[in-house]
């Protein structure tokens, strides 16, 4: 079944939850398929068998057995099993097992109309304060207060999310203006970013961008890497509110972090986010 769904578009999954989510999609589709084919056969047989040219007089009583209630009960039972066996546990893990900031890579993502601001805590691992009145779309889109306790070494990027592979990532999601949805299709991550709320999302990527790109060779997607897609109508630029995701090996990630820290030192006060698209999308 998973192959069938893959064939019908389901992208490969590259996070620790993707397997379980695909599994439940598959199970539900089995249920659907069985019901559909079962009733489909019954439907077609009845239409052929009881067409009026063949069956002149209808039977007033029709089917008298009540096997159908067994079928209905069976559907109910299967649904309950799906819920308790699969759906509830996955959800519980999703919302309850949010990793602590210490044993995970902690990143903030602040959505705004048509861009993703990615806020990294810097070397101290703690985020500086952000204040609405400091927001300046050109120089300080997230309103970071550099003078606050942990603010000095924070840096942020725009539309560039870099994460290490095989490490727990925790993203605190919020929005500056309207509701967006932070979606990483291949990682099976999706979460509304709602202004006024700060919602944690966590996942672990299981392959790097490079490895992922290899799987895409020969498909229409060849050469196009991972992206953040905005999956909630957020205004006229909704369709182009795209971010880029790069999953590094641990060392590469660390050196990227260092690089950012150096930039920060060199041109403090300057615009950080707009580094060149040095990642996968040169030919885009």
């Amino acid at each position, binding site marked *: 079944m998973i192959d069938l769904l893959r064939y*019908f578009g389901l992208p490969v999954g590259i996070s620790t939850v993707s397997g379980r989510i695909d599994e439940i999609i598959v199970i539900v589709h089995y249920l659907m398929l069985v019901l559909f084919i079962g009733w489909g056969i019954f439907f077609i047989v009845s239409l052929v068998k009881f067409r009026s040219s063949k069956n002149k007089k209808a039977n007033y009583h029709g089917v008298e057995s009540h096997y159908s209630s067994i079928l209905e009960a069976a559907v109910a039972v299967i649904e309950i099993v799906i819920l308790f066996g699969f759906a509830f546990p996955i959800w519980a893990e999703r919302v309850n097992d949010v990793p602590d900031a210490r044993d995970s890579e902690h990143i903030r993502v602040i959505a705004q109309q048509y861009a993703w601001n990615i806020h990294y805590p810097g070397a101290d691992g703690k985020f500086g304060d952000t204040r609405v009145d400091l927001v300046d779309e050109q120089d300080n889109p997230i309103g970071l207060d550099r003078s606050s306790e942990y603010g000095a070494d924070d840096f942020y990027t725009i539309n560039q999310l870099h994460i290490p592979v095989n490490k727990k990532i925790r993203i605190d999601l919020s929005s500056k203006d309207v509701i967006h949805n932070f979606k990483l299709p291949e990682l099976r991550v999706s979460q509304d970013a709602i202004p006024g709320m700060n919602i944690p999302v966590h996942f672990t990527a299981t392959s790097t961008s490079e490895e992922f790109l290899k799987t895409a060779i020969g498909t229409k997607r060849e050469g196009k890497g991972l992206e953040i897609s905005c999956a909630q109508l957020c205004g006229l630029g909704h369709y182009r509110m795209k971010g880029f995701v790069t999953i590094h090996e641990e060392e590469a990630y660390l050196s990227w972090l260092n690089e950012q820290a150096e930039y920060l030192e060199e041109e403090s006060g300057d615009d950080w986010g707009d580094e060149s698209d040095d990642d996968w999308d040169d030919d885009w």
Partner: protein
Amino acid sequence: MSDNHHHEENFFQKYIWSVDHKIIGIQYGITSLLFLLFGFSLMAVMRYQLAYPEAVIPYIGEWFFSESGGVMLPENYNTLGAMHGTIMIFLGVVPLAVGAFGNYLVPLQVGAPDMAFPKLNAASYWSYFVGGVVMMASFFTPEGAARSGWTSYPPLSIFESGQTMWLLGMVFLITSSLLGSMNIIVTIVQLRAPGLTWFRLPFFVWSQLVTSFLLILAFPPLEAAAVLQLMDRIAGTSFFLPSGLVYAGSAVEAYGNGSPLLWQHLFWFLAHPEVYVLILPAIGIVGEVLANNTRKPLWGYKSLVYAISFLGFMSFIVWAHHMFLTGMGQTMSAFFQLTTMIISIPSVVVLTAFFISLWGGSIRFNTPMLFALAFLPMFGIGGLTGLPLGVAASDIFLHDTYYVIGHFHYVVAPGTLFALFAGIYYWFPKITGRQLHEGMGKLHFYPSFLAMNGVFMPMFIQGLAGLSRRMYDGGQQYAHASDVLHWNEFMTISAFILGLAQIPFIVNIFITLSSKKSKDRNPWKATTIEWSAPSPPLPHVNFESAVEVHHGPYEYSVPGKDEDFCPQTTP
């Protein structure tokens, strides 16, 4: 109240300001069909854009998108999407299913001379009309029409232009539905003909009763929410605006402390029952047509009635399955997943009963029956694809993708819309005294059926690939969509074929209207009460003599009788 049928009426009294439920039903019918056509046209422009994103829209582009040289802009696309959804649901399908069919048929099927409150009935139509005019007018205001989706999620809807007119229009439409459904409930409870006990009511009447209750209880909260959103837009309150917003580069000046989630709760509290408002009348129509054309009673009539009543009740406690990704915790999500799975069971019961009704029948394949039969697998696909959406874990991936669009279009377009077509073909002889041409009917059915699937089936593929809905360019920006993008053109062409397939229908209607009336008042040899009235039924009184009911609704092929049907009114 109803002593005005003695004197002669002029044209206006008779057709425009009428209080006769049949005229009002027809007014509703014509208006809503026109809106359906309009909703379709909006969608056609949209689909063209999805298939050919950079292209100039042919013919109409230079008119409507003149500033941009005939190319559609993102804001135009959002307007089309929001208004397509709004128009199809609130101005097309609900008025057609409840306003037109409910109005026309409920009094006839319960053997009543009219609705319980004829003037209120007219008020309901005119309120709908005004609501429609406001919605249409919004296209011509400087701000343009709404563009935040039919769901109108704040804060976007509070910042975006065009929303005020949408909200005003909604207030009228809601009022109209409230008046209409009050009337239907009272008519069913109070005006049933002697002998017409609850379990002798045709299934269609039951479905209208449940639908009306849904409208009465679910619509007012949306009215309240609309008032709150209007306040946010006009009076500067911040019910739906949290503190600390930065919009378009500057801090939003509002008190704050509001909650965007509040709107979602109030909206979906309406909008989930609303989707059952879309489907229940359709199920009712399909039941009638199936019983008539299988020439046997509906199987499990009572369990059908219980199933839809239960469905109606449950529909009030599943709404948050549209909100799984709003940061919901375990309690909420478990509760709403459970109720969502529970609510799918009565739907399974209904479909099962319909399938089993076929067994042992003597099935006639006329046009209404074809549409009704097509409804079953189409609703089946739509309903079944609701299940992975109702399971929160799989909804993480499928939420707001084309999978959702595919899911609900399968229930509302080849589902409800086909059922409504079936109803139109089935009751046309009663309404006009003339039967629609069968050949043309089939010419309408087969291409429509194929094209519908051509439009909506690929949506599941696109959805499984993770392609988001409401994308102005159809998803070109995104890498994950590149595998499935080529479907867009196919779907668009199918949509245009779908449009062409409606031409035989429209032509059929006009040709038939100009033909001679038939004397046969019961061409389908049906049992329910409306067929014992003349076609069309007499103005204001419907029946020539008082109706008395002696049988259940579907006494077809009763053993030991020569005729294969036994009308409810024959002793």
